[in-house]
């Protein structure tokens, strides 16, 4: 397992370089924006990656909370399936605001039970919480990049750094704020139940995001704003490069998460070792055993 990391790292570096080449050289120049539009090949993949990571955090948080009691554990599994099926069907039946494709919504909903069972199988018990903090932190990093590159892109093209009615950028900002508060809660909370509190906060955040989206969407319809992200279809060649770029960033995000995950496991080992030492007195040799079950989970 350990040897896979350097190999994957080299492969990812090559992939990122290839994506950069595609973005700067191969992709055609945009008719309206010139070459500045190429920021999109970093901006959008970062956004999709951040959303994916936050999605995983949400699923992991819900499962972590539900697994606390055997009754809720069983119920949650059925609810996950129900949500997936109902949501996927509803996406095609309920009229959606303009600009949102039913297939995208349906895929998101179907992903819920899929991820739920996948995470439950490969990240049992405390590992769910380790995954939660990992995806939250790495997600914030990618989300920061989205919020920084967004205005950098907007300024030369639309003349303004920010538009409050820009639904995507503003929703992303709120998501960023929620997860930064999540990380701060983890850092500052001294409770034995910090992990559960943080998971509850993640659930609140997830419930909040669609509400944010709709509130800004309606605000826009009453107060027309410049459309920064641009809508509409993309040149297929540009779309190809976008996908290549996203693939490269996904591999990169995977490696970063893997590193953060290992760091968290190590941190909990050290914390447990500290605790054991203060319990049994200094000077005794305490074998540091397997990771996992600490009662304090911050950072």
């Amino acid at each position: 397992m350990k040897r896979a990391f350097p190999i994957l790292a080299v492969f990812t570096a090559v992939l990122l370089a290839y994506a950069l080449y595609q973005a700067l050289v191969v992709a055609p120049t945009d008719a309206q924006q010139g070459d500045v539009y190429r920021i999109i090949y970093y901006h959008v993949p970062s956004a999709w990656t951040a959303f994916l990571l936050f999605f995983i955090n949400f699923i992991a948080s819900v499962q972590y909370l539900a697994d606390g009691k055997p009754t809720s554990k069983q119920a949650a599994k059925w609810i996950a399936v129900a949500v997936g099926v109902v949501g996927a069907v509803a996406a095609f039946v309920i009229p959606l605001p303009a600009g949102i494709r039913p297939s995208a919504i349906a895929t998101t909903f179907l992903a819920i039970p899929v991820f739920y069972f996948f995470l439950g199988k490969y990240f049992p018990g405390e590992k769910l919480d380790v995954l939660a903090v990992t995806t939250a932190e790495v997600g914030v990093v990618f989300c920061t990049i989205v919020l920084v590159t967004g205005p950098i892109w907007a300024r030369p093209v639309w003349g303004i750094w920010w538009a409050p009615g820009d639904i995507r950028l503003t929703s992303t900002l709120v998501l960023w704020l929620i997860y930064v508060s999540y990380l701060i809660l983890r850092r500052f909370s001294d409770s034995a139940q910090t992990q559960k509190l943080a998971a509850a906060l993640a659930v609140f955040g997830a419930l909040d995001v669609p509400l944010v989206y709709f509130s800004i969407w309606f605000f826009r319809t009453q107060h027309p704003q410049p459309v920064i992200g641009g809508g509409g279809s993309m040149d297929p060649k540009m779309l190809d490069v976008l996908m290549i770029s996203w693939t490269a960033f996904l591999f990169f995000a995977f490696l970063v998460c893997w590193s953060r995950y290992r760091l968290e496991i190590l941190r909990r080992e050290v914390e447990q070792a500290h605790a054991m030492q203060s319990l049994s007195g200094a000077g005794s040799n305490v074998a540091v055993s397997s990771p996992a079950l600490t009662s304090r989970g911050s950072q």
Partner: protein
Amino acid sequence: MNFRSVTLATLAKDIRLEWRSKDALNSMLFFSLLVVVIFSFSFDPLAEESRHIAGGLIWVAILFAAVVALNQTWARELRNQVLDAYRVSPAPANALFLAKAIGNFIFVSVLEALMTPLFIVFYNLRALGPAWQLIPIALLGTWALVVNGTFFAAMSIRTRSREIMLPLLLFPVSIPAVIGMVAGTTAILTGDDPAHFWIILLLTYDVVFTTACLALFETVLQAE
């Protein structure tokens, strides 16, 4: 131990205690007054656009006053180890939460009742749209702040920098509600747009988060 009786008993106790020591109430009222005055110095009330920004100003002022009030929510319980007693009692955790939330709702509503006339006076406000719609907006908006505020106040109990943790957690999650309150109020004051969507948004927000708070409060109460 029936749910309703526990809720009402806890609520009555809080009101009685609050009424006996009017300290918190008086200082909060004065604080609210100060906020309104400061705002009237900072944002020119004579300007033509004051009707457009008054909605935002009122709700931001209420938000900050509410946070100061919410930070007190669990202080009394902490001082007297009441939470430990509650944890081991058969009383449903939700009853305690609901009592606290309703108590906060009443308290913040009192603050609003004081601040709103002051704003109307300072900013010479007159609603060009249907003024009665301001009532559902105020009720739903206040509940939105208070229900999450009470929940996050409980979450913040065992954190370092407890007072700053509450707004830190509350503000991001409250953003859609704040948009709803402000946009709805502005729509009614200026009379430019209908406020229906905002009222429905606030109602949805309230239903979603009241459910979430009730479902998850047990977890928070057990946090030690």
